[in-house]
């Protein structure tokens, strides 16, 4: 009798221990799964259905749409020639980062591999910091999450400074 009770006690002990572990691990995997779709959306691939975006264009040319096209112009950079322009026709987005796959490839140690995402929205050009190590600054102020840019804003990603223009 006592033997059975002790055995049952041991089994209960181990089951409770593993049940705890299982519940914590399950909530962790849920958390990771919940985060995954966001990561997919952020991951920019050239084959996506969105129009090719953020490709450098000759300064001064643009979509010619009334109101103009949102454009990022390099003011100062350790890796891109000043004056390089990235145009954002409606419905486009571009990833800025150190990764060679990034649309705006910045070969700079202070830039994270996926550093920030620029995309056009109904309100204008939206900038989102993708939890980069050194952050993204707009007019010298660190942004938390996402902001909508205004023409004339200065965006800093690592040591590169962009000016926002409507062309």
């Amino acid at each position: 009798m006592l033997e059975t009770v002790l055995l049952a006690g041991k089994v209960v002990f181990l089951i409770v221990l593993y049940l705890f572990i299982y519940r914590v691990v399950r909530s962790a995997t849920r958390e990771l799964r919940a985060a995954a779709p966001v990561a997919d959306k952020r991951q920019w691939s050239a084959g996506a259905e969105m129009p090719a975006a953020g490709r450098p264009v000759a300064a001064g040319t643009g979509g010619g749409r009334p109101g103009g096209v949102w454009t990022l112009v390099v003011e100062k950079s350790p890796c891109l020639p000043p004056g390089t322009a990235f145009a954002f026709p409606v419905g486009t987005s571009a990833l800025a980062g150190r990764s060679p796959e990034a649309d705006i490839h910045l070969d700079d140690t202070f830039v994270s591999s996926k550093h920030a995402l620029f995309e056009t929205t109904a309100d204008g050009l939206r900038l989102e910091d993708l939890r980069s190590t050194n952050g993204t600054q707009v007019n010298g102020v660190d942004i938390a999450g996402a902001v909508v840019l205004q023409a004339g804003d200065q965006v800093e990603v690592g040591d590169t400074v962009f000016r926002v223009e409507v062309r």
Partner: protein
Amino acid sequence: MSVRNRELVFLVPALVLTTVGFALVYTQKATVLTWTSLTYGGLFIVLFLIAHAGVRVLASRADPYLLPVTALLSTLGLVVLYRLDEDLALKQAMWLVVGLAAFLLVLVLVRDLEWLSKYRYVIGGLGVLLLLLTAVFGREIYGARLWVRLGPVSFQPGEFGKILLVVFFAAYLVDMREVLTVSTRRVLGVPLPPLRYLAPLLGIWALSMALMIFMKDLGTSLLFFGALLALLYVATGRFFYVLVGLVLFIVGAVGLYFLFPHVQTRVDIWLDPWADPSGRGYQIVQSLFALAEGGLFGRGLGRGYLILPSGSTIIPNLETDFIFSAIGEELGLAGAVGIILLYLIFVYRGCRVAVRSRDDFTRLLAVGLTSIFALQAFLIMGGVIKLIPLTGITLPFVSYGGSSIVANFALLGLLLRASDKAD
């Protein structure tokens, strides 16, 4: 479910295990145990509920799993200690009271981590001072100089020193990371930073070597070196530092092996404990016997051959360094793997705090604290199962030992503060 309610729910298994564990040990050994000793389990449950209430007030957004995992580890330790010696369990329960007080004190005092970063040099100096204190006033026990007697209380300053040094080093690296990341030249395709920036790495190496030479404390010296190397790697993202660190480690290890008979013995025992199974290899051999005896599911709490008729434990230092073997014998592979999984969960949550941190200091602090914790658990569990040479350190939260319990609760407090800031 809110974060804190989740914490409360996850504390329930710890409370159940305490009850079941104490009941099992008591049933098994009713002839030698007293009724009052059952109250230690009750004391334990109340303690963690108080800690939970404290976190609700002081760090309401902190990670919900760290405290329950700690409670589970402490519970396993307490149950095994209760099984070994009821007086030891009472003392451990007292240390848990002090530890949880230290935990809440850290949460009260350190409302803002910036404050730690600001006083980095004071904190670093204090850390070094604690270690010096051990080197000068320490008493040698089991070949290592770890203990300092202060009036009636003996404690291990190294346990606290290591946390202070991690805080200091995290703050220091926040300033230094930019210069440490800059490369000026390449050698064989490896970008090299200016040599003088290797100074911090060489500094830690020198400190670890000094610890080893003056205190013969192999475990703490390995902990320092490993944790600070992890910090350096996370701060700079340069594998180069890890490489240099490993080279320095190998140079140091080989040098110490030939210089110190103490280290030589440890390595020889590790390579072949069966050469002298009743002498130098006794501890490890008995630990392996205990693990083998436990099998898959263990002999059951209170049923292992842990205590000699004379009242002393078969394995010397069973309640501190070798508590993992006791768990392996009584709860089997299932229990031992459970412990390892609990440590992994702790480390995973710690890394998650680091990833979610918004500023560099918080991130590095979380990485540093998690690394010393993980390394400590790995070094001692690896030691008792003969995976690596044995270094006499405690199994965090499980082993008997005041300094270790209090220091690890302080570490938990800092980690929860960092987590509260990150989320």
